[in-house]
């Protein structure tokens, strides 16, 4: 799990759960008939389950293979078309309207927060202000936080200062988790 957490942070946050099928190893994969016991690994396989809990697609490219992401996106659309009609509306995520992210040049933590904004497709809703290039932004963040600390995420009345917390907040606002 720590390895997964680090990888996800390195990506600047991910908008899906990365699960560990490890205690006991491969138990969930086994229940899907995808654990390769003789090799001690799980198959590189993809399963699409509709909202009623019924399997709508199952395929493997073998552990040595590589998935065709464009084809998978097409399959998702197919399943949504064929089985999406009767679905109740999913509550809209809270969103991040009106948020401002303060960053500076050459700062790894700023970079992490910026990556999260990109990976979560928030370019339109989270404004970026760079205190290295914009003196007004420096004044603004100093006023908000009482110090010259970035990254800082101003969201409504709240201000967050740790990149990990910023990533967590953005993910949670986007996904509703």
């Amino acid at each position, binding site marked *: 799990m720590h390895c997964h957490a680090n990888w996800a942070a390195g990506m600047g946050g991910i908008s899906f759960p990365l699960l560990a099928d490890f205690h006991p190893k491969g138990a969930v994969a086994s*229940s899907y008939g995808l654990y390769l016991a003789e090799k001690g690994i799980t198959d590189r396989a993809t399963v*699409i389950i509709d909202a*009623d*809990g019924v*399997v709508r697609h*199952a395929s493997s490219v073998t552990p040595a293979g590589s998935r065709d992401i464009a084809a998978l996106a097409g399959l998702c659309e197919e399943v949504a078309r064929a089985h999406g009609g009767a679905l109740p509306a999913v509550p809209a995520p809270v969103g991040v309207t009106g948020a401002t992210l303060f960053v500076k040049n050459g700062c790894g933590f700023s970079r992490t927060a910026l990556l999260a904004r990109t990976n979560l497709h928030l370019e339109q809703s989270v404004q970026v202000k760079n205190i290295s290039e914009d003196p007004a932004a420096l004044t603004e963040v100093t006023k908000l936080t009482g110090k010259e600390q970035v990254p800082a995420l101003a969201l409504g009345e709240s201000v967050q200062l740790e990149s990990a917390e910023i990533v967590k907040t953005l993910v949670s606002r986007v996904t509703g988790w």
Partner: protein
Amino acid sequence: MIQVGDRAPDFTLADHLGRQVSLAQFRGKQHVMLLFYPLDFTPT
């Protein structure tokens, strides 16, 4: 391998932030895609 039309076995596993995630929590709300990987840091 599980077959199209089968009922998907439920599970609860920890995600990368330590949260418990169940297949059941998406029931009636969203379709779910499971991407199984043999190892970390391997291709798509």
